[in-house]
């Protein structure tokens, strides 16, 4: 990131090569539209180029994932005719995992950890994470009582934390 702050184009292109699949994948899962996912990817990387100071340390992977989610959420908002209050709050961009912790958490390990959850908890967590919807909407779509959704999300996230082990258990 220091090189990108110094306007090093080759450093930026290397960063793009390393992370565009993640950004594109998040946007595609949330938007279900290849063109929109491509636009989000462009926007996210333009943000990194024009405002690298927005990244203030910690895990770059976690940060860029949140930026991608928030940008995809913006797109969902712009598409939506629902009142703002029915859409989730955006995520703060600082804090969270350190880069060294994230380096130990690869996709396969997270998928394995998710697979250990009861199906009803896993479905809620994945739909919530990639759906860009609120817990009320989760309850409606899965025909599950609201109180049950709350309990399952918390319980599922705690089990996932335990399954991922060191690093996210602090």
């Amino acid at each position, binding site marked *: 990131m220091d090189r990108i702050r110094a*306007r090093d*184009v080759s450093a930026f292109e290397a960063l793009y090569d390393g992370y565009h699949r993640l950004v594109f994948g998040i946007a595609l899962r949330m938007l279900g539209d290849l063109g929109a996912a491509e636009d989000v990817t462009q926007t996210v990387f333009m943000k990194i180029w024009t405002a690298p100071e927005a990244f203030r340390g910690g895990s770059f992977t976690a940060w860029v994932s949140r930026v991608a989610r928030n940008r995809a959420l913006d797109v969902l908002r712009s598409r939506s005719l629902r009142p703002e209050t029915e859409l989730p709050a955006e995520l703060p961009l600082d804090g969270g995992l350190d880069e060294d912790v994230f380096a130990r958490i690869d996709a396969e390990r*997270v998928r394995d950890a998710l697979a250990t959850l009861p199906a009803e908890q896993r479905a809620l967590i994945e739909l919530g994470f990639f759906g860009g919807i609120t817990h009320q909407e989760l309850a409606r779509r899965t025909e599950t009582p609201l109180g049950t959704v709350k309990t399952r999300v918390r319980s599922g996230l705690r089990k996932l934390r335990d399954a991922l082990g060191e690093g996210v258990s602090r």
Partner: protein
Amino acid sequence: MNDAPTREEMMELVALYALGVLPRDQAALVAAFLAADDDARAEYHALRATADAIAVTAAEPVDSARSARMKERLSARIRADAASPAARRRIGPAAGWLWAAGLTAAASLLLAIISSVQVFTTQGQLAQANRRIGTLQTQVAQAQRTAQFERQERLMIGDLAAPDAKRYDVNDGIVVVRGDRLYLALSKLPPPPKGKVYQAWTLAKGAKAMQPSVTFAPNAEGVAVVALPVDASRLGAVALSVEPDGGSKAPTSKPTFVQPLS
């Protein structure tokens, strides 16, 4: 005041917030809770880190043609920008990027409409174009306000939950200072009497008189999370009192609290 949620209910909301599925209108309730509860903050950070990890499962191969096209488009913009030092200055500060692209697009659209007005031949067409311009200007202003609000909201919750923030317990809640930003996160505030509001006060280091700050009222649950528009690093104390609607220039009632800041 509505019945306050139990601690277990609040911890469930914390998990929903960590996953990113809590509606915006409940974010302040969670923010106030996180600001005041050490265990809740620890769980929030752990669950948010867990939720962050889910993102890596979304990474997937992008087909080579699309990948090359995306990189080519982006590289062309980056190289053009890198070749023009003035371009970066035009883009403005980091905080503005989210809506800058939207505003630029809206402004371009406005220009296009204005240009097209030149070829209109009837008053009716001109009036219609003017109405469209007015509508667009309103939408641009609304987008600016919404984007600014969202940036402040993200910053606020990040600050309230931050492990490195300074916290001062006060009546009905907590005062949180992080860097030069200061928040009142109050969760058990009774509604003010009719015709009254709560007003925050600040005392600059070395000063003798309190300066008036924002006025506010709690929500139905007695929750109010307020960012004071002040440089916290220059403050010696913060206070809260009940004042007539519209606020006062000097406190007119006994303060609810006066909190020195170290």
